[in-house]
């Protein structure tokens, strides 16, 4: 099996076919190849029913793959599932907290299930309660927690044994924007501890701003892979839009910009200049400086970026936003 030293998860042609009672085969996952590097936030982006959860359940030893190979934390999924379980964490869509107890007791239970002794379990539970700011309600029954509070507890349960990699299935579904932003912060701090994060999502903004690397999945197959930036660059069409004071300035601006090497295409509409570029963020300042040097007056300047939805659109012919599932 080929894998570089920093690979923590590797799959080759991973498949899962469900056999239903009326003998119709449902191919939920149709040959997935993954290479997840240590320390990444790896995003598995796709619409509902794309096979994300099924893939995750195979990688976490809950489902047996129909065929294909997989290595998780240097252990073979087929022959060493027990070893894998010791090194991974998993937070399912429904969480998994024991609703009938409180956060302290549930965290201690989780730590002990991973073989930690009571003293260590209590210490870890206390640390995580402080860290995820659960103190205020840590001794209350879990069924009374809000969605955001419960998600933070779920995450704490998932990392209490300090796993090498944690799998999060649709971690922010159903959270309000504030709780989501907070949850993202928690995920980033887990990454800073050196834990690899593998998450599924159908949110474009989550995939874009949180994940280091993405695999876009549709109908059980990966349709695109790369960093969010690289995926969007592949689409091209990032543009800097400059609105000019008047036609005279517009003409001057156009002449100036046409001479610049970084401008791939130029396009004028009404009083606006559209400059098609790569890595527009870095070029915004250059454009401003060039215009200023020539004393060309402008009203506004903005950067228009291609979105991951454009990537999905190009690969599948459908929009993730318009899926009706979102």
């Amino acid at each position: 099996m080929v894998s570089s030293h920093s690979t923590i998860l590797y799959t080759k042609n991973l498949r899962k076919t469900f056999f239903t009672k009326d003998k119709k085969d449902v191919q939920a996952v149709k040959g997935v190849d993954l290479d997840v590097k240590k320390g990444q936030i790896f995003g598995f982006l796709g619409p509902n029913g794309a096979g994300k959860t099924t893939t995750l359940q195979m990688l976490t030893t809950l489902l047996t793959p129909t065929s294909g190979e997989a290595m998780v934390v240097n252990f073979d999924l087929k022959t060493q599932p027990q070893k894998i379980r010791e090194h991974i964490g998993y937070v399912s869509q429904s969480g998994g907290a024991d609703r009938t107890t409180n956060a302290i007791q549930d965290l201690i239970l989780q730590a002990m299930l991973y073989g930690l002794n009571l003293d260590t379990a209590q210490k870890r539970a206390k640390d995580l309660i402080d860290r995820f700011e659960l103190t205020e309600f840590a001794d209350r029954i879990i069924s009374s927690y809000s969605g955001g509070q419960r998600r933070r507890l779920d995450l704490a349960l998932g990392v209490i044994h300090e796993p090498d990699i944690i799998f999060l299935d649709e971690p922010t579904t159903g959270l309000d924007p504030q709780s989501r932003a907070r949850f993202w912060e928690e995920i980033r701090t887990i990454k800073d501890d050196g834990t690899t994060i593998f998450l599924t999502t159908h949110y474009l903004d989550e995939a874009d701003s949180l994940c280091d690397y993405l695999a876009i999945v549709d109908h059980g197959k990966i349709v695109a892979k790369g960093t969010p930036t690289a995926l969007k660059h592949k689409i091209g069409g990032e543009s800097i839009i400059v609105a000019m004071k008047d036609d005279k300035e517009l003409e001057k601006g156009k002449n100036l910009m046409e001479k610049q090497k970084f401008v791939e295409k130029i396009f004028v509409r009404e009083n606006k200049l559209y400059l098609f570029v790569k890595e527009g963020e870095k070029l915004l300042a250059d454009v401003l400086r060039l215009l200023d040097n020539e004393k060309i007056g402008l009203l506004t300047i903005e950067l228009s970026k291609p979105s991951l939805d454009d990537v999905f659109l190009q690969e599948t012919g459908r929009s993730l936003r318009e899926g009706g599932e979102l």
Partner: protein
Amino acid sequence: MKFIQDTQILFVRNFKKTLREPLWLFIGIMQPALYILLYMPLLKNIGNTSALPLGKIAQIFVPGMLIIMGVSSLFAGFGFIPEIREGYITRLLVTPVNRFAILLAMVMDQLFTLLMQSVILIFIALLLGLRTSVIAVILSLILVIIVGATTSCISYIISISARHEDGLASTVNTLYLPIMLLSGIMLPISLAPQWLKNIAGFNPFYYAVEAARELFLGNFTSFTIVKGFLIMSVFAAVALWFAVRSLRKMAVM
């Protein structure tokens, strides 16, 4: 060692949960207690037959109630289904915890409740005139435990495939009545016509009832006792094996 440790950790958790709702202890005991209070007196007036000799009514009726209380562990899945739905069981399955330990901790918790109920039931029966030996009570309690282990496992298997309380309720209710009638707990099967006896012979719980009766009557040398223990033990082992298999293979939520 890890297996024992895992079982212990999970049993303590399950037992704490059970103690939080002690009402279940009494709900489970209501039905058999009412039978002893309101039905058993009727048997005394049926007349002196070889199947129901006068003066031995309690020794024949109470063991049946004990066994049927064990059979009631068919309802154990009602506490388990919410745990599947809420993802708690999936969470356990992702940890390195031994699968058999997960099952055993659930069964043991159920059996602990059953044991408490059985002791209370026997105490009530003693107050109402049951006369038997300590050894008979102890052996009967062991038999009830084996019955309860079997039926709770069956309940967990049904729960894993049904995934919903409605499915479990309809299946269990369908099973419960024929098991009860074919065990001869209301009246001994020896009163039944041959064809009914033949059908009852396929019901393993019938042998448990017969064995418990011999124990309460003090016929300790009867082969019926050995037969009852043997059949129920095999049945329990098979149920445990299938239950841990479905837990291992359960498609997760």
